[in-house]
C-alpha cells in the first residue's frame, strides 16, 4: 500500500491543481477567490508533510503564516467584491473586460 506521505502529497497536488482549475473556469469572482484558497490549502498540506519528513517546526510555522496571509487576502478581496457588487450588481468576471488591448 502506498506510504501515507506519498498519499498526502498527491492529495496536496490535487488540491492545488483543482484550486487553479476553479480559478480559471468559474464565472463568479467569489468562487475564483475560493479557488485560490484551495490552492493555498494545498500548499499548507505540502508544508505540513514536509515538516513531518524533516522533523522540525519550520513547516508548521510556515503554515501559520500562510493561513494568516490567506485570511488577510480573503478579507480584502471580499470587501472589493462588495464594492463591485454595489456598483455593478454582478460579480461575473466576464463583464469586467473594459480594460484590454
Amino acid at each position, binding site marked *: 500500500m502506498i506510504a501515507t506521505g506519498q498519499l498526502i502529497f498527491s492529495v496536496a497536488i490535487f488540491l492545488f491543481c483543482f484550486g487553479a482549475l476553479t480559478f*480559471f473556469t468559474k464565472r463568479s469572482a467569489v468562487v475564483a477567490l475560493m479557488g485560490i484558497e484551495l490552492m493555498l490549502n494545498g500548499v499548507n498540506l505540502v508544508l505540513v508533510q514536509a515538516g513531518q519528513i524533516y522533523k522540525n517546526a519550520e513547516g508548521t510555522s510556515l503554515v501559520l503564516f500562510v493561513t494568516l496571509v490567506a485570511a488577510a487576502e480573503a478579507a480584502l478581496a471580499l470587501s472589493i467584491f462588495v464594492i463591485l457588487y454595489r456598483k455593478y450588481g454582478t460579480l461575473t468576471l466576464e463583464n469586467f473586460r473594459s480594460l484590454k488591448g
Partner: protein
Amino acid sequence: MTDVLNIVEAPLSWIILLPAAGALLNGLFRLKSTLNGLLATAFCFAAFVVSILQFLKFPEASKLADPGYLWFQAGHVKAQMGFELTPFMSVMLLIITGVGTLIHLYATSYMSHDKSQARFFAYLNLFVTSMLVLALSSDLIGVFLGWEGVGVCSYLLIGFWFEEDKNARAGIKAFMTNRVGDLGFLVALFVAFAYFGTSSVSGIMEWIADPGRAAALPVWVLTVFALAIFWAACGKSAQIPLYIWLPDAMAGPTPVSALIHAATMVTSGILVIVRLWPIFATQTEVLSVIFWVALSTALLAALMALTQRDLKKVLAYSTVSQLGFMFAALGAGAPTAAFFHVVTHACFKALLFLTAGSVIHGMHDEKDIFKMGGLRKKMPWSHVAYLVGCVAIAGFPFTSGFFSKDLILTKVFESRGVLGYGLLLLAAMLTSFYMFRSYFLTFSSTPRSHEAEHAHESSAMMIVPLMILSLLSLFVGWLEIPHMWGHLQYFSHWVESSGAKAVEGHEVEAATEWLLMGIATIASLASAFFAYVKYKKGPVTSSENFAWKLSFNKFYVDEIYDSFILKPLRKIGTCLSLWIDEYGVNGTLHGSFASYRITGQLASIFHTGSVQSYALLMLLGLLVVWGVVNVW
C-alpha cells in the same frame, strides 16, 4: 637637339587679367546703349597690344615664362598656375586677341538693340580670358582650367537667348559633349601626374627627352596619354564621335559662332597637340588613328554640308570639315601645316561667319538661303566679303586657303600616299562646291522672298571688320609659301622653334609638288564652276533620293546617338536608381515598419482583458519558458 633655351620673364598674366577685368566690369555695370560693347572691345584690344609686344620679343627669346603662383598641391599632385609663351602660341595669341577684337567691334553693333548687352559682352570677355588661359598656361592643369572655362562660356553664349528652349538645350548639348571629351583630358592629367610626376608641359618634355627615364616608362603610358589628349581634342574641336554639338551651336548669336566656333575654341585641340608634339611624334599608331578619324570627319561633314538650307549650318559643317583637314595634317606628321591652316581658317571662317551674320541681320533674321537671292546689289560690301571668303576657303590660287590647304595636301601625299591624298582632295572639292553653292544661292539671281527685297547693308562698324578680315584672308597665305617659290617660311620657323619638329616623311621633288598644286587648283576651280552652273538661277528642286535625304538629315547621327546611347543609359540609370532607392531601401524600411505594427496588433489580441485568461496565459507562459530552458 636642345638648343640653349633663352627663357625670358614676361608679364604674361597681364594678357589674361585685362579681358578678365573687362568681363567683371561688364558683369557689374549695365551701361547705356553700346558702351558695354565698346568697353569689352577696348579691353580685348588692350590684350591684343600686349600680345603684340610679347610677339616682338621673340626673335631673341626662345620662350617667355611667367611663374604665376602655386594653385594647389597635395600628395603627388602639384598644380602650378604659371604661364609660358612659345613662338607659335604667340602667333595664336595674335589671332585670338586680334580676330577677337574685330569680332567684339562687329558684335557691338550687331547686338546694339539687344536688351541684355552687358551680359553678352561679359560672357564674351570671359570667353577670351578662358581662351587665353588655355593658350598661355604652362601646366596642363592650367590648360584644363581654360579648356573647361571655354566650354562653360560657349554653353552660356550658345544659350544666350535663353527664352527659347531650343537654345538652352543646344547649350547643354555643347557643354555635355565637351564634358565627355574633357574626360579624356582628365585621364591624360591622371597619367601625367602618376607617371611624369608633373603636369607642366616643359617638365613632361624633359621627361620624354631624357632617354633613361623615357625607357623606364611602361610602354602604354605615352600611347594612352596621346589618345586621351586626342579624345579631348575631338570633344573640343568637334571630330567624329563628338562633333554633334557644333551644328546645334549655331543657336547662339552669330559673333559667338564666329569667335568660338570658327577662330578660337575649336582650334584649341590642335594647339594642345602641337604643344605636346614631341610625344605625338613618337606615336605612329596614334598619328594614323588621328589621320583616319580626321579624314572621315572632313568627308562626312562636307557631305552633310551639301544639302543644308540654313546658311550658318553650312558654315558650321564646313568648320567641322576644315578641322578635319587640320587634324589630317597632324595625322600626317606636319604640325606646321596644321597650325598654318588653323591661322588661315581663323581668318576666312571668321570672315564668312561675320558676313553671314550681316546677311542674316539684313534679312531680319531669316537664315534659309533658299529664301535669299539677289543680295549682290542690296548688300555690296557683304557680297565682296563673302566672295573673298569663298575664294579663300575653296583654295583659289594665291589666296591664304590655297597655300595652307596645298601644304596639307602635299604633306598628306608624302606620308599617307595616294589614297589619303585622293580622299582629302575629294573633301576639298566638296568644300569649294558647297561654299559656292551657298554663295550663288544667297547673292546671285533674283530675291526670292519679301525680306530679300528689303535687305539693307549693315552699318559701317560691321563692314570695317569684314574688310580687314578679307585682306587678312587674302594675304596671310604669303607667310608660308612652298620652298620652291622662295624662303618665306615664317610658320615653319615659328612651329619648329617651339619644339614641334615635323615627322620626316620622304621628301617630294619639286616636280610632283607642282603637279599636286596644279591638281588641287584645277579641282577647286572645276567644282566652283559646277556649283555656278547648277545654282546660277536659284535653288534647284532636287529629287528627294536616298543620298539627299541622308545628307540633309545629317546621316541621322543625332538620332542614332539618342536612341542607342543617351536614352537607354538614362532609362537604365533612372529605373535602377528608382527601383533600388524607392522600392529597395525605402521598401524594406516601410515593410519592416508595417510588419512591426502588424505583429504589435496581433500580440495585443492576447490581452483579452479577462483575469482568468491572464492567469491561464501566465501558467502557459511559465510552462513554455520552462520547457525552453530545459531543452536549450
